């Protein structure tokens, strides 16, 4: 009341409008106006913008008026006919706030009431509501200064208010808010104050408020302090937004949900329901800071008291809810706000001009300070956010760099391997596959980076055009798709990973179906699917696939190059190899496209292996991640190659544009060489493609699947991606390598960890393995089922041996995990012996805690293939699966391949036997590995030779050399150093490789040894059958071998960083590049060591070469 009378307090109006207005109308005293004028300064406190117009400063008061105005307008001709709507629009905040008080009022002229409530004190000024409009008019007319008559004022005020205090809350349709929330309250409040109050509000009302404000402002307090106004506005906005605020009395319960803050029961207090939400979301908007304690301190300064919040529903006291109360701070009682003053000033609850005078001083400064602090805090927050983003970018960039470095190194290693191959014997061929693997890894790693950036598209485009053009239409399309897809692929990588895996599983499923996807059918399907998928990939996943393609191509080129260079002899072999490689390449491409569609499957298998490895996998992942980057780079290179030099440039550019640009640059040189080779290969592939398509498709499918998996993995974690790469390599030579590349790329780009796991598991198998778990222990049933599902297997469980025998009779399983003791009737041994009477093929693994030698002996004699001691670990289970399903997988692959190219009988049993034998005698295993490697090498050599045939060989060689040089330079290696490295590679070359391979396999264990042994056998067999198919197989075998080795290495290296290095070495070995390859890789890594993974590998590499060799020797 006093305020109103005091009139002077119109500070708000005064500021915007000359106090004179008020003075006349309310008859408020000119002095106040003066005060008001003085007040303006305070505004700064509220919100800079608001100040210009007093309304901001006194948003609360203003708001009411505006509302009034609006309402008035609506009602009567008054100030602005249009205004009503405009008012609402403009004053959403106001309206909202007012709405709380009495939105409906505006419509019914009641709006004032809400505001009026405060006004109550100002009944003195009672003016008929209708009069209010008049007042407005009067104001406008009277005070031209206030150009925009009352409405204008109102508008200004509202806007200011909105901008200043309520910006955060978008204009709420006043009508709705008002209607919903305010009406009731309004009604209640209106009746009492409408008539009387309105008048006041209309003219005097504002005046009164302003007066109060003025008083405050004059005093320095700004009428209601900025803080209080903001607080009030905030509450009104919240209430309007959530419908709780409603009129003061309305139970918030209506809407059920409430905001983080709102009016308390009856509007006599306000409640912070959710401190966290309030602090993080509401406070910053209103007070530009997110310090709840600061907020509470402010409240304390203004005389608010915290009261125990009693839950309306339960009636219980809630501890976590903050409820604050101030006698003058009530919903709809805006006028009272003026009474709330800082304690320091001597809080005056009643608007007292005198008190205001005193308080104002103190207020002004504090308000400004607080506002400034808020601004600063906001800036800090924003800067922090920027900093985080920048750091993230830096990390990404570093990761990319590391990957690039790794790729370059790998390229070098590959080149070296190629050289060895050329110069050396077929053994070098073994290196070849490793090279491919490395390339793939590099691709993978690079790809992620690329993926991040858009480059992939560019890559895809150029690459696809060039290489693809050379290649068959399908391939081209695929390649194209890949190029485009790169980015997509990455993206897809994440999404695809799961689905792709499934798809891949389906494709591989042939495996699962084992018989199902016969080589021929698989080939056909793969080809078909592969190409289609490629196409599909082109559009979407293109990014992913292209990298793979590129990678594959690069690899092939590299190999081809070396061969040509080294020896013509190899060339002859090369043709076949080439065909195989090209085929692989093409398949890869196909697969890559498939990735998008089918790619997931491929990735799946890879992941599986990785997942199985567990810690070793992690190590592998790390390494791989490092490797992946390189692979990605390679892929880029490869893409470039595909494109041709031109393409390369484009791709390179794209790549370079990405974080890894520099590495790419170096890599580019190499890449270019490789690219050229690739192109050549591509051409070869084109020529071969048809043939290759036949065989390749399957591998490609796998590879693509792997890649997709990789992507998924990569998304999960870089390390994972790397591991996936390894897996890929393991899976199929060409296909794997390609897959790796893709996977790496996708992985790099994706970076999402979750996908990795899935992808890994899925990627591990070409076909979803079907496992029968015979176990009477619920815990083990659950545990093994869980693990197996993690590994991407389909699991059936049986509780007893009889059930197992029955199931084995009905269905076909890829593997049986059988407990030994089932109770009285039959134990696992007996069940196994029974099963062996009709099924001598399916691996039966005994799960038992009785793993004494004599027990084991009895198990084996009963026909069991292996033993998984309880309690087994996830890793242990995976190893067993990998060991025995690798055979299946290989057998499946054989089946597929065989049908297509040549029929090769699955040797599952033999594999098992071999595995056992190998486990028994590591030497033998090594020997076999060596043989395998040799075979692989021979295959590689063949592939290279084929490359030569393509025309690219000569060029490739030259390019390779260049590339080699460049890589060294890029990594910081001098030419001499590079040559030394190459020499070492060559020297250690075949034998070291073999040893290392053998060692790796042996070291890992029977499983590895077995796998290696099998692979060699397979390779051997295959070779005879078909050069092409053989090559592919070899490649696959090699890959698998490499993968196995890698796994072994990883496992061995699990212990630590060193371990990671070994992994790399293992990968390299697996690649077939051999020690030389590994060394080269490690060297490359060393330079790249800057990146985390790269560093590890690099550090390892330092000691690495020798260490690896030693290991190999030791092994």
């Amino acid at each position, binding site marked *: 009341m006093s305020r109103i009378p005091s009139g002077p307090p119109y500070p708000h109006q005064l500021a915007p409008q000359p106090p004179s207005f008020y003075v006349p109308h309310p008859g408020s005293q000119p002095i106040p106006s003066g005060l008001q004028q003085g007040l303006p300064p305070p505004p700064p406190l509220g919100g800079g913008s608001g100040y210009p117009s007093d309304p901001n400063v006194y948003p609360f008061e203003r708001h009411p008026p505006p509302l009034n105005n609006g309402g008035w307008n609506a009602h009567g001709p008054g100030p602005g006919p249009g205004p009503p709507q405009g008012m609402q629009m403009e004053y959403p905040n106001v309206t909202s706030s007012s709405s709380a008080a009495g939105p409906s009022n505006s419509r019914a002229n009641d709006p004032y009431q809400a505001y009026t409530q405060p006004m109550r004190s100002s009944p003195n000024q009672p003016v008929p509501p209708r009069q209010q409009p008049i007042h407005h008019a009067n104001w406008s007319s009277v005070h031209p200064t206030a150009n925009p008559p009352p409405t204008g004022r109102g508008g200004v005020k509202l806007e200011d208010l909105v901008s200043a205090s309520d910006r955060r809350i978008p204009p709420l349709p006043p009508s709705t808010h008002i209607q919903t929330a305010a009406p009731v309250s309004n009604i209640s409040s209106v009746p009492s104050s409408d008539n009387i109050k309105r008048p006041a509000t209309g003219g005097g009302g504002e005046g009164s408020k302003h007066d109060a404000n003025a008083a405050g402002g004059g005093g320095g307090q700004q009428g209601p302090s900025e803080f209080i106004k903001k607080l009030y506005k905030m509450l009104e906005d919240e209430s309007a937004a959530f419908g709780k605020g409603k009129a003061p009395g309305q139970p918030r319960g209506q809407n059920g949900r409430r905001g983080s803050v709102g009016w308390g029961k009856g509007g006599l207090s306000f409640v912070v329901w959710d401190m966290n939400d309030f602090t993080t979301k509401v406070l910053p908007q209103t007070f530009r800071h997110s310090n709840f304690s600061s907020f509470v301190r402010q409240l304390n300064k203004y005389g608010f008291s915290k009261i125990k919040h009693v839950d309306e529903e339960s009636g219980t006291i809630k501890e976590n809810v903050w409820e604050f109360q101030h006698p003058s701070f009530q919903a709809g009682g805006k006028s009272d706000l003026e009474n709330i003053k800082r304690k320091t000033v001597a809080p005056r609850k009643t608007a007292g001009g005198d008190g205001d005078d005193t308080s104002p001083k103190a207020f002004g400064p504090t308000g400004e300070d607080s506002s400034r602090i808020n601004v600063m805090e906001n800036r800090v927050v924003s800067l922090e956010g920027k900093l985080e983003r920048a750091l993230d970018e830096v990390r990404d960039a570093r990761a990319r760099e590391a990957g690039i470095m790794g790729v370059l190194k790998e390229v070098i290693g590959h080149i070296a391997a190629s050289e060895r191959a050329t110069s050396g014997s077929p053994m070098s061929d073994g290196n070849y596959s490793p090279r491919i693997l490395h390339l793939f890894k590099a691709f993978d790693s690079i790809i992620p980076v690329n993926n991040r950036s858009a480059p992939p598209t560019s890559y895809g485009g150029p690459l696809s055009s060039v290489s693809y053009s050379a290649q068959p239409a399908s391939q081209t399309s695929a390649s194209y798709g890949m190029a485009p897809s790169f980015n997509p692929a990455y993206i897809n990588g994440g999404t695809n990973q799961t689905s792709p895996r499934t798809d891949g599983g389906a494709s591989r499923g042939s495996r699962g179906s084992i018989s199902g996807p016969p080589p021929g059918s698989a080939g056909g399907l793969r080809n078909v699917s592969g190409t289609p998928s490629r196409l599909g990939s082109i559009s979407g996943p293109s990014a992913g696939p292209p990298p793979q393609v590129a990678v594959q191509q690069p690899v092939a080129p590299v190999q081809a190059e070396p061969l040509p260079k080294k020896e013509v002899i190899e060339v002859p072999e090369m043709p076949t190899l080439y065909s195989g490689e090209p085929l692989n390449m093409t398949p890869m491409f196909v697969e890559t496209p498939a990735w998008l569609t089918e790619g997931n499957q491929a990735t799946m298998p890879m992941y599986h292996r990785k997942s199985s490895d567990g810690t070793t996998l992690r190590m592998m992942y790390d390494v791989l991640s490092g490797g992946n980057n390189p692979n990605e780079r390679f892929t880029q290179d490869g893409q470039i190659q595909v494109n041709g030099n031109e393409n390369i440039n484009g791709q390179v550019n794209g790549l370079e544009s990405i974080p890894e640009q520099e590495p790419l640059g170096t890599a580019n040189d190499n890449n270019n060489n490789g690219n050229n080779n690739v192109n050549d290969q591509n051409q070869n592939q084109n020529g071969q493609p048809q043939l290759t398509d036949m065989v390749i498709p399957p591998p490609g499918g796998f590879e693509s699947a792997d890649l997709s998996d990789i992507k998924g993995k990569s998304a*999960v974690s870089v390390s994972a991606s790397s591991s996936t790469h390894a897996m890929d390599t393991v899976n199929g030579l060409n296909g794997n390598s390609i897959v790796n590349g893709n996977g790496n790329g996708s992985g790099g780009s994706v970076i999402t*960890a*979750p996908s990795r*796991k*899935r992808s890994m598991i899925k990627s591990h198998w070409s076909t979803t393995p079907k496992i029968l778990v015979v176990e*009477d*222990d*619920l*815990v*083990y049933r*659950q*545990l093994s089922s*869980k*693990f197996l599902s*993690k590994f991407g297997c389909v699991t059936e469980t049986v509780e007893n041996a009889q059930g197992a025998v029955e199931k084995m009779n009905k269905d076909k399983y890829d593997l049986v995990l059988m*407990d030994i*003791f089932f*109770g*009285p009737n039959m134990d696992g041994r007996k069940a196994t012996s029974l099963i062996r009477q009709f099924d001598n093929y399916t691996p039966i693994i005994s799960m038992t*805690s*009785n793993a004494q030698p004599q027990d084991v002996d009895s198990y084996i004699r009963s026909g069991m293939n292996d033993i998984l001691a*309880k*309690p087994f*670990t*996830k890793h242990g289970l995976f190893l067993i699966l990998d060991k025995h399903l690798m055979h299946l997988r290989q057998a499946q692959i054989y089946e597929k391949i065989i049908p297509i190219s040549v029929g090769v009988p699955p040797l599952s049993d033999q594999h098992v036997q071999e595995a056992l034998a190998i486990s028994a005698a590591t030497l033998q295993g090594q020997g076999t590995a060596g043989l395998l490697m040799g075979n692989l090498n021979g295959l590689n050599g063949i592939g290279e030779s084929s490359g030569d045939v393509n025309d690219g060989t000569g060029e490739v060689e030259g390019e390779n050399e260049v590339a080699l040089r460049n890589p060294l330079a890029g990594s910081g290696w001098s030419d001499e150093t590079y040559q030394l490295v190459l020499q070492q590679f060559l020297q250690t070359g075949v034998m070291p490789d073999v040893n290392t391979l053998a060692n790796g396999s042996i070291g890992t264990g029977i499983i590895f040894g077995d796998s290696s042994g099998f692979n060699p056998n397979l390779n051997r067999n295959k070779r005879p059958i078909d050069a092409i198919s053989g090559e592919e197989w070899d490649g696959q075998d090699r890959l698998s071998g490499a993968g196995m080795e890698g796994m072994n290495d990883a496992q061995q290296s699990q212990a630590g960083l060193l371990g990671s290095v070994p992994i790399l070495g293992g990968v390299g070995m697996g690649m077939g590049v051999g020690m030389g390859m590994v060394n080269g890789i490690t060297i490359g890594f060393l330079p790249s060591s800057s990146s985390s993974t790269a560093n590890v590998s690099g550090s390892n590499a330092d000691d690495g070469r020798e260490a690896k060799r030693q290991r190999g020797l030791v092994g």
Partner: protein
Amino acid sequence: MSDIKHQDASSLSKATSDTKPTASSSTSPESKPIDKKEEEDEDPESQEDVIDMETFQQIMDMDEEDDADEEDGEKHAFSKGIVWGYFEQAEATFQEMEDAIVAKDLNKLSSLGHFLKGSSAALGIIKVQASCEKMQHYGNKRDEEAGISLEPTEALKRIQDLLTACKKDYQVAKKWMENLYEEDK
């Protein structure tokens, strides 16, 4: 003598069976040796002795992986399911052991010991695992530690004591795990 022993055994078994229901580490009159029989609330240290975290963590890790894959799933749905399944299975096995003791079926006890040993080992509940392994051997009338053969009555008696101690350890493990999942919720 044999009769007397037999009675003792049966009484013991009864006592153990009585205690079973609680499943907690109730101190059965006969629980001989082992440590504090009834301290269900063993101190954390003893709990750590009971659980091999490395093994159990492996299972918990599976949860995390699940979480990564399925955000909406219960946080520890998998490991909790396994642990709860183990509880059921273990308690059922304890009951079978009680019955087997009553029936003096050493072979059965050995089998049961083996059975529970396996699942306990899978979860890293090493104390229960160790007890079950002993029981397995006792059921075979062997004391592997001493390398001697046991008389059936002696074996049975040892098994009874073992069962009591085993239950106690089991309770500790159960409580620990329950707390673990309680906290994680």
